[in-house]
């Protein structure tokens, strides 16, 4: 699946997008975050406070409990500050 990062999540990860191939046991958004944190120290730091990070699957907001099966695109970002 394609992953996109925005705002300070993007800055901390060090890239705007990448392809992710999580192992099959990674079933939810929250589990994907936990898996990303195991990759290296950069991801561990970027997702350290996972509870504040928001996620979207295929351009729609989801909670961390949401299953990722079938999604083509996932995005991680801080709480929004538009308007």
């Amino acid at each position: 699946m394609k992953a996109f990062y925005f705002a300070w999540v993007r800055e901390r990860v060090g890239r705007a997008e990448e392809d992710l191939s999580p192992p099959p046991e990674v079933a939810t958004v929250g589990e994907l975050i936990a898996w990303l944190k195991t990759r290296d120290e950069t991801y561990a730091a970027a997702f350290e406070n996972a509870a504040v990070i928001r996620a979207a699957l295929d351009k729609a907001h989801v909670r961390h409990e949401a299953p990722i099966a079938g999604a083509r695109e996932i995005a991680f970002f801080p709480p929004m500050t538009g308007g």
Partner: protein
Amino acid sequence: MTPTIRIQSAPFDPAHEAALIEEGRRDIGAVVSFTGLCRDEDGALSALELEHYPGMAEAEIARVAEEALARWPLQALTIIHRHGRILPGEKIVLVIAAARHRGEAFAAAEFLMDYLKTRAPFWKKEHRADGSVGDWVEAKAKDDAAAERWRK
């Protein structure tokens, strides 16, 4: 009624957008327009950089607009949100709601702004007047509370 939704880096003209809504109409009784501008924070800020999630910004604002249309009988609705570098005094966001009566237009415009603040995928980064890059603007609890009150 199909709302007009635009995500753009270019400036916009609220008066022109309102005129497009009102042109040739005899049924509209109230037009409420909200414009959000970039503040300079007492001279501390030289610009805001607005990052957005292309594609989702349009989709999420369309979802919020659908919720507004389900709640109030709006006759016209325009939402414009800019991205990119925005200078103090420049306009960032525009919501114009038209209805037969002012109550519906006022309520819909306020609902839309409260929801855009917390759901539209935009993030503001500060550029300081001293030339340094400032922080990402933090989401405010009062914005969450403002959106939450519409659920009651």
